[in-house]
């Protein structure tokens, strides 16, 4: 799978705001297997960019293509097919089912398009230190724990692209590295690309491209 951007600019941007950007208003393609790191300060449109890529928002000019298909023409049904098989995401605001248990949150994603067996959930939870939380309600977990739940959830499906929107904002350094290591292993297993946005450059993320918004 390939994702191409053709002069994409958020419609709500003031004139000239995108001029210095290495991403906005450019023609760029992202391919399977490469890691892309997008670095930008707050308010420069990192979350908007990830949402544009995932098809949650359409308030941009230009085109975003999945394998030469303009996603502006996709309906909800078509997006569901791509999201089940080719694109996974970790939202900045996590988007978990807070009234359900941690395991239910992970299983509902795994069952949709199973890539791993159920037992792998416990292994991953153990690696990220939330094994004891699996039976607990999500809303009883700390934000840092919820961030790790969202990471594990994103890894339950097949994907060609893994979109990460500031995925470590509430994790300590040790947990950040553990999570990054797990995600890189999982992406490598699928020969997938990781597109990671953050406020500053993350040293332990081995990116082929670094783009400043």
């Amino acid at each position: 799978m390939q994702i191409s951007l053709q002069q994409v600019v958020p419609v709500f941007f003031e004139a000239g705001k995108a001029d210095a950007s290495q991403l906005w208003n450019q023609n760029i393609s992202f391919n399977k297997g490469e890691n892309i790191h997008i670095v930008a300060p707050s308010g420069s449109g990192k979350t908007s960019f990830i949402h544009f890529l995932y098809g949650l928002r359409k308030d941009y000019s230009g085109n975003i293509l999945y394998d030469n298909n303009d996603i502006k023409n996709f309906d909800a049904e078509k997006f569901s097919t791509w999201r089940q098989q080719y694109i996974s995401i970790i939202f900045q605001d996590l988007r978990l089912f807070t009234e359900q248990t941690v395991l239910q949150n992970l299983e509902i994603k795994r069952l949709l398009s199973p890539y791993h067996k159920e037992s792998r959930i416990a292994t991953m939870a153990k690696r990220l230190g939330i094994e004891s939380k699996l039976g607990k309600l999500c809303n009883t977990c700390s934000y840092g724990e919820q961030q790790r739940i969202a990471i594990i959830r994103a890894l339950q499906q097949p994907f060609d692209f893994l979109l990460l929107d500031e995925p470590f904002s509430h994790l300590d350094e040790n947990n950040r590295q553990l999570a990054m290591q797990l995600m890189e292993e999982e992406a490598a297993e699928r020969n997938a690309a990781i597109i990671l946005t953050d406020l500053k450059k993350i040293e332990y993320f081995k990116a082929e491209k670094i783009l400043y918004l």
Partner: protein
Amino acid sequence: MNLSYKNIAPFLSAGQNKASRWLSYIGLGVGVLLLLSSIQMYHNINHLIRDKNTRKNGADFISITKTITNENMGKDNRFTDAEISGLKTQSFIEDAAPLKANAFKVTAGAGDMIPFSTDIFVEAINTNFIDTVPESFQWKEGDALVPVIFSTDFLEMYNVFAPSWDLPQLSEKTATSLPIFLRCSGHKGERQYRAKIVAFSDRINSVLVPESFLEKQNKDLEEEANAKASRVFIKTKDANNPDLLSFLSQKEFHVNKDKTKFGRVKGVLQSIVSGLAGFGVLVILLALVLFSFYLQLMIAKSKDNLQLLLTLGYSPQWLSKTVAQKWIPVYITIIIVAVFLTQLLHWGFQYFVMPAREELSFFIDWIVIVIAALLLILSVAINYRLVRKSLHKL
């Protein structure tokens, strides 16, 4: 996708609003039961009153004669062709046909079997106006056998006075196998025919012969090619139409109201049952509306979770289908229970209300089953569309 409703159930607030859910189930059940049992009763009424029915193809057939008064006694009170054409032009009269009578003398006897002979009259009418017309009711010149359609009332009258005359009483079946000898005589001569009762009529109080026979004898024996009729049968949508009755009374035509009585009783019964069926449909609609409120409320309450499921990659089509399918077993159960209760009611009607009427079938009519199946399809389809629409609105 190896997923079922069970997997997404924890993410939906389906367990809430139990009261409105159960109310809609009960409403649907009551509505379906009302509708199905009304249809079955409609069918039963049709079946039970069929024998005495004067209606045919949704029309009433009634006979009219001119009212005999002291003033017109002795005059020719038969209908003229112009009067019959005038009847046909009225909007409330679909058709009219004269009941032509014999101009010659007819004597009927039953040979040696029943030593009985009497002068009779025979009449003929367009076969479209006769309720029972077997194929054998035809006569052409040269035929020695004349088919006769006999009034059931006449047979009843005969059976009343037969014992006092030492004559045997006759069933309809025996009467049809009885050889009858007709002697037709007039100024021009005399002819003998064999006759046979081929059918009985509830509608027309007469001894009916084919029109071809009557016309031939009238012409040959009395040189009367176009005999005028004393009675005219009219076909009308409703014999109780006030316009028709006022027209007839204004023209001083007499109507045989007894013959429309069954039609009226049947009409009233069918109206009541149709009203019940209409009420049933209304209850079903209300129940479906109530259930749709429950579904919409459930979807609204689970909006965030459903939205997140869609964001994570769940297909809207799969979600609609799965959520809608959840209630199919409930609908099937409700409708099967309603069909079963309709069968019980039908059985109760058969054994407690109409125990002697064997013409009613033990099982409910097939149309009731078809309607039940259609209701099931309708409920499921409405349900699916509603869920789909609500999900697409998210």
